[in-house]
Each structure stands twice: as C-alpha cells, then as structure tokens.
C-alpha cells in the first residue's frame, strides 16, 4: 500500500461520505451533519464506563463530534435536538438497532410536540427565567463537573445543582428588583447562586427539568421498545 493508493482510498471514501439531514425538533427543520468516522465511533466506545462520569464524558465527546460535523451554529441546538442527532448517527451505521427500525423512529420523532423551551416561573420570592439548555451551555457545565468533581465521592447532590444551574438563565429578586443574569456568570458562581436558593423556590424548575427529560425519553421510544442513550448505542 503506497501513499498514493492510500490517499486514493481516503479520497474515494470521502466522495461517498454520507451527509445526514437530521430533523431538529426545536427548529422544526433539518440541519446537515457529516456522518461519523470510524475514529469518532471508536472514541465514543472508548469512554464506555459504568460510573456517573461516563454519561457526562459521553456527552462531551458527542458535543465535539456535533461541533465538527456541521456548519450550523450549535448554540441554537438544545439537549432534545441532541438526542435526534445521536439517533441519526446511529441509523447511518446500522438501520436497525436493538430491534428498532431507526428510520421509523426518526420519522416518528418528527410528530412529537415539544414542551415550552423557555419559561418564566414566579415564586413568592423570585421570578425565574428558565430554558432548555443549548449545547454550548450544556458542555460548559459538564466540563466544570468533570474538571472539578472527578475525584468526589458525594457526587449526586453536585450533579443535581449543576443540572438546575444549566436551566436557569435569570433570577429577579421580587422584593428588591435585583436581577442576576446567570448566563453572564462563571459556572462556579452560577452554581453558588443556585445553591443559595431555598429548594422550595426551585420546585417548579425541577418539574420543568422533568418535562424536558421526559421529552428526551420519548425520542428514544418506539412502540414498546426504547434505546438507552450512551456509548453502548454505538457498539453494533
């Protein structure tokens, strides 16, 4: 195999490189992505692990792949859209996954009605402006978790605060009118702000997060079968 031949192979493979038009639920339109490469697939599978960080690392790798696979501004894509993108990547490798016809699953996902992607919640003390986190926000908080809590044992509480912090954009204190824009703060400070709020005030935020996660779960469900989103999905 000389260099020229190898270059020919790559060029030939690129010619046939699949472009995926993925339906993006939040935009109600399709966005073009490059199909996964063998190395990207390998990188996903390499992070296979059973701990909590496995999921976070999986989404970090997926984030990098999505970013490098499209010219679309990924800050306009959210975590619900990410599920559909992952499913489209999987479909391109194997049309059937865990007995689910991936084309039919993706087609069904076009019919799902999304909940409100932005919401304002008024409690007795605050006005909270929340939204489904976009991919840029999501990766920012995930990276913070990985970089700061990798060796922590009591992780669940931190993950919960981190999760809430991703969703809350702005807090207005009803009594004083003071506005705290969390999107302008560092992740560390945003988490500190959320930590200082009484859990009772965040009850509706938790409800909203559950609604969004339930919607994400709907995207991976087909009839009585469902897929688990994670590196395992790419082992086929």
């Amino acid at each position: 195999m000389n260099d020229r031949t190898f270059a020919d192979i790559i060029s030939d493979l690129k010619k046939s490189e699949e472009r995926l038009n993925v339906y993006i639920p939040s935009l109600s339109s399709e966005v073009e992505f490059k199909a996964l490469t063998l190395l990207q697939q390998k990188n996903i599978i390499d992070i296979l692990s059973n701990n909590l960080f496995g999921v976070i690392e999986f989404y970090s790798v997926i984030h990098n792949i999505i970013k490098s696979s499209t010219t679309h501004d990924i800050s306009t894509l959210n975590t619900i859209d990410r599920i559909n993108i992952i499913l489209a990547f999987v479909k391109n490798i194997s049309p059937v996954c865990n007995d689910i016809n991936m084309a039919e699953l993706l087609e069904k996902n076009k019919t799902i009605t999304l909940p409100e992607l932005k919401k304002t919640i008024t409690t007795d003390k605050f006005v909270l402006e929340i939204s489904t986190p976009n991919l840029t926000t999501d990766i920012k908080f995930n990276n913070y978790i990985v970089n700061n809590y990798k060796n922590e044992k009591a992780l669940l509480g931190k993950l919960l605060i981190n999760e809430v912090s991703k969703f809350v954009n702005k807090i207005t204190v009803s009594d004083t009118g003071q506005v705290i824009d969390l999107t302008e703060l560092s992740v560390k400070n945003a988490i500190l702000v959320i930590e200082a709020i009484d859990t009772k005030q965040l009850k509706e935020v938790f409800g909203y997060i559950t609604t969004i996660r339930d919607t994400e779960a709907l995207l991976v469900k087909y009839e009585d079968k469902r897929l688990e989103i994670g590196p395992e999905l790419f082992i086929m």
Partner: protein
Amino acid sequence: MSYNFVYNIDVLGKTYQAREISFIEYRNLVKNISTSDVNTISNAFETLLDAILLTDYKINLQQKFLILLKYRELILGKNIEFVANNVKISYSIDTIFDFFNVEVIPFEYECNDNIYKFLFPTKLTPNTDVFLNVVYCISSINDYEVTNLTKKGIENFPALPVVDIYKRITEHFAAFIYNIKHIDYTISFFNTSALLLLKAIFSYSLQNFYDIEYSLRRCLNFNAADFNQYSYPECNLMLKLYMKEMADKENSSKVESSV
C-alpha cells in the same frame, strides 16, 4: 554487503526472500519467547519477520504464520515432536503448512456504498479492542488494497458496525481451522493458538545454546562476530565435526599405543 544466506520461501504462490538468522539472533528470539505474555511473544516474531524479510512485504497473519513455519524448518528441521499419552509423536510441519497454504475468499461487506473486503488480521495476536481487530482485517476498500492500517490511518473512514462485522468475519473463516488430533490442539487465526504454536516450535533449550557457544569459543576460537555471522545449524554442525575429529584422533592414538 551482508554475508547472510538468503532463502526463497514460497507462500500462497508468492516468493518471499528471507535472510538466514545468526546463532545470536536465534538465541535472542528463544529468550524473548520464553514468556507467557502473548504480546511479548508476538513482538518477538514481528521483530524477527522485520529482520529477515528483505523487502517491506505487507502481509497478514496467514502469510506470516506460513513464512515462520517454513523458517522454522530451515533452522530446526521440519519435524516437531509432541508427547501425548506418554508417547513421543513426530509431526511434520508440512502437514500444517499445506493445510493453511491456500488462498481464501475474503469476507465482503458493503456499508454506505463502500465495499470492504476482510481477510485474516495483520497482527499475530488479537487485540482486546474489537475496533482494531476489524481494522487489522481490512484487505481492500473499493478494490484498493490496504494492509497494515493503523489507528491514525482510519481517522477518516466512515463508522462501521464493527461488532457485527467481526462476528461475521470469524463466521466466514470458521472452517479455516486446523486440529492437531494427537494433542487436540486447534489452530485458528482469530485467537492466540497460531502464535502459541509458533512459540512451541521455535522454543529451544537455552542451556544447549550456551553449551555450543562455550565449546566453540574454547575449542575453535569463535568470537562474537562469528556467532553473529554463522547460523545455529552451522554452529551446531561445526561443533559436531570438531567432536568427531577429536573422537577420531582419540581412537587413532589408542590404536597406535596398542600397536
């Protein structure tokens, strides 16, 4: 200019030129494979192949295995001995060689309009990573011949259902296994059995090496350069000739003194 002799080894209808290894090189090989670590054994044989093959052949496990079988014949002869049920059995390498020295039909797989063909892996031992196992089995893509692909080399290849492909490759070649009935040992190119057979048939007593080296240094003034130039069979032969000469001299002096 090298003074090492060059052999022509015919494998799968192609002739490979391989130089003869010296006494020291063979002794080092035996030392390197005296371990249970399959990666070390594999590296030792890969190093041997790199050292003896005179051209940069891109070959897979089938070709490597066959070349090494023939190469073993050149060093220690074609018979291998087993002990089964307390009986010593002599077995010819040719039997194994002839079984595996046949062209096989590659496993073909089409994915996203690319046609991949898979043969036996290029590495002597399987990887724990199924990805790399599949990559090492790719023999051609869209009729371009590819061998010795690396992790770096696959960066731009489209993703593949590797687990399914690997399962189907092993099923495709499932019949291409050989069983040495006397010891119930099955050789396959998808596990370490071929490598471990090579280890067994290339292994040799290190004590014998040191005996030969000591005797040749002491009696025939061999030095390091000689051991780097002569092969193991040559050194062995020279020692035998010397011992025969000494025995003849002793016999003739006994005859003279009795007269």
